[in-house]
């Protein structure tokens, strides 16, 4: 075993110093190119090389490109196609190459020497790679003093090139993360712009209302409500395929086109055909838009609709929901599809309401994980039927949102017959949404007192109804929401000689047994509320909530004058 001399010890320790210095330099580096160049300079100086160059593999072209260069000849930017040469041999074999006499190596091309006049004698080249991930190579030329590079030089260079490979991988990861962060910010900005573009809340008297709830980030949904000069109102709902920035931009474009074309084109069929044609002007690359456009004539309660691939709108008439099925394929699929225009349907609202929605509604999940489906959606809409339109839409959204059942953006639009009702349809039914908090109980009691009177309850009975509702609300506040935030919906209606009170919440289902009345001979606080409700009502029942969301309590009392 050869004894190490003091000189060798000193050399080894100074190599170690260099490695530590360079590794920490890499770790802190913001400018990788500059750091690699500085590192190359130090390595060349330490190992006594006359010239050095650093090549990185360019993934797109598959070529090695010179990123840094030391010495009398400048070859930065030089590209080496895969093939011969010492650098490529180093990269391919993934091991350091020590060439003591370049001229006798068959892979030495001599091309650079010929072009620059530099005379290469010996070469030391080490791969920059880590765990098989090849990034490039560091190549040193001509050891100063006429000697060839040694095996020890090769080991030092290999260690340094490996740590530079690691540093490079690291800095590329950091750059990718920064880019992702930039992209996230861009999305947030886009979503803000989108929200600003949606129509503002309409006046309560407006026959058309819409609501949009983006699931996360950027929405592909949109709706428009656009009063026309002749008193009619144009409206639209749409959903752009895909997610992210492209979908957001396409949505913005489609919505702008609608606003512009609705004023010019006569009828929703022409509007959709014109949008389709405009969309084909700019390539969509596999994206498409499903959309319903319509025009309401408030004076006649008549709606003209055109549908391009969207979920069929639902007409809520006296005898239930009817889908308006007619339609065309989505917009942006193929230019010839809309060449002959787009068919229109005429819908007579006749005192009813037309609902338009995106598939986020029917695809929302109920508490048991099932999809809401169109049956769930319609029963949810009916549950809030007595509420004014804007509140009704908000209640539907809230009932989905509070149980966390939304998987996608949801947009919901309602078009109502705003004409004064002719056939004595005013039932005096009452429905309103309240925050489930002790502070709102006073307001709720006042509403019940007033409505019970309007529905024909004598004052004594009205007082009892107030108490029953108050106690039921307390149960919701205390047992369903357990003091947490939430909402409840109060619904009062008269059915023949029965007063029907319904209270709905959006909390997890309560165990009915837990709020059953206690035996009355047991004098203790608590448990009284349910007893009070049962003593003044004819019936108190928990009904299956519409769409399996929250709890629905129904209380019924016969009205006796």
């Amino acid at each position, binding site marked *: 075993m050869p004894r190490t001399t003091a000189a060798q010890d000193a050399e080894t320790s100074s190599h170690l110093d260099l490695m530590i210095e360079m590794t920490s330099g890499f770790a802190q580096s913001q400018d990788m190119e500059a750091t690699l160049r500085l590192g190359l300079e130090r390595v060349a100086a330490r190992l006594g090389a006359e010239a050095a160059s650093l090549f990185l593999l360019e993934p797109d072209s598959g070529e090695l490109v010179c990123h840094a260069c030391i010495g009398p000849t400048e070859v930065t930017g030089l590209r080496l196609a895969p093939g011969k040469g010492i650098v490529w041999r180093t990269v391919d074999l993934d091991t350091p190459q020590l060439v003591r006499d370049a001229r006798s190596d068959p892979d030495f091309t001599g091309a650079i020497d010929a072009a620059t006049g530099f005379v290469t004698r010996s070469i030391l080249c080490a791969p920059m790679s880590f765990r098989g991930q090849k990034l490039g190579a560091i190549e040193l030329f001509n050891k100063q003093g006429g000697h060839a590079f040694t095996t020890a030089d090769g080991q030092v260079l290999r260690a340094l090139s490996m740590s530079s490979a690691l540093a490079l991988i690291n800095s590329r990861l950091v750059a990718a993360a920064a880019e992702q962060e930039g992209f996230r910010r861009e999305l947030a900005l886009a979503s803000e712009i989108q929200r600003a573009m949606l129509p503002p809340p309409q006046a309560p008297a407006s026959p058309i209302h819409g609501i949009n709830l983006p699931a996360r980030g950027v929405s592909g949904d949109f709706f428009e409500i656009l009063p026309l000069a002749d008193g009619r109102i144009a409206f639209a709902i749409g959903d752009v395929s895909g997610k992210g920035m492209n979908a957001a931009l396409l949505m913005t474009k489609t919505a702008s086109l609608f606003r512009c074309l609705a004023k010019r084109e006569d009828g929703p069929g022409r509007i959709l055909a014109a949008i389709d044609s405009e969309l084909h002007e700019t390539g969509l690359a596999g994206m498409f838009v499903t959309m319903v456009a319509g025009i309401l004539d408030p004076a006649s309660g008549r709606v003209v609709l055109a549908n391009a691939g969207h979920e069929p709108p639902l007409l809520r008439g006296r005898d239930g929901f009817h889908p308006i099925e007619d339609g065309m394929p989505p917009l942006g699929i193929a230019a010839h599809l809309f060449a002959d225009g787009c068919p229109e349907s005429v819908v007579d609202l006749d005192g009813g309401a037309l609902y338009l929605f995106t598939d986020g509604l029917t695809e929302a999940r109920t508490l048991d994980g099932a999809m809401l489906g169109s049956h769930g959606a319609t029963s949810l809409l009916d549950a809030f039927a007595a509420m004014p339109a804007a509140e009704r839409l908000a209640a539907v959204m809230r009932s989905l949102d509070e149980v966390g059942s939304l998987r996608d953006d949801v947009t919901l639009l309602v078009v109502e017959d705003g004409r004064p009702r002719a056939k004595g349809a005013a039932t005096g039914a009452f429905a309103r949404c309240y925050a489930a*908090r*002790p*502070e709102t*109980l*006073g307001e709720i*009691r006042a509403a019940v007192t007033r409505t019970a009177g309007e529905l024909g309850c004598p004052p004594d009975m009205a*007082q*009892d109804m*107030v*108490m029953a509702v*108050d*106690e039921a609300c*307390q149960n919701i*506040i*205390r047992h369903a929401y357990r003091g947490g935030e939430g909402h409840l919906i109060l619904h009062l209606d008269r059915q023949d000689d029965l007063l029907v009170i319904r209270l709905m919440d959006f909390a997890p289902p309560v165990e009915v047994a837990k709020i059953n009345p206690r035996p*009355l001979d047991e*004098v*203790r*606080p*608590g448990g*009284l*509320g349910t*007893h*009070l409700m049962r*003593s*003044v009502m004819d019936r108190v029942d928990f009904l299956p909530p519409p769409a399996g969301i929250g709890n629905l309590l129904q209380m019924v009392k016969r009205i006796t004058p």
Partner: protein
Amino acid sequence: MKLHTTEIGETTVMALAGDVDLSHSPTLRKALMELMFQRRAVVVDLSAVTYVDSSGIAGLVEAYQMARKNGTSFTLAAISDPVGRVLRLARLDRVFTIADTVEAAVKG
């Protein structure tokens, strides 16, 4: 709800007014419990109460139980119609000591 107390000799008269519901019953309960800890004789004047719910009644029941344990007197006085209705429904009208007027209650 408004809550006002007056001392008449050994007795504290607590006058309640307005709606005693879930938003106020914690205040009522706390005030009653303090008096019970001081072992005061208490008369609750309910003449101006427009509404009381089960949570308000629960506060009164708790005070009644503590007074019994302490051997102090706890009387409901001049109960308004809404309060009387709820007490009857809960069949507590036979549990509490009820006086027609505050004066009668204070005299015991």
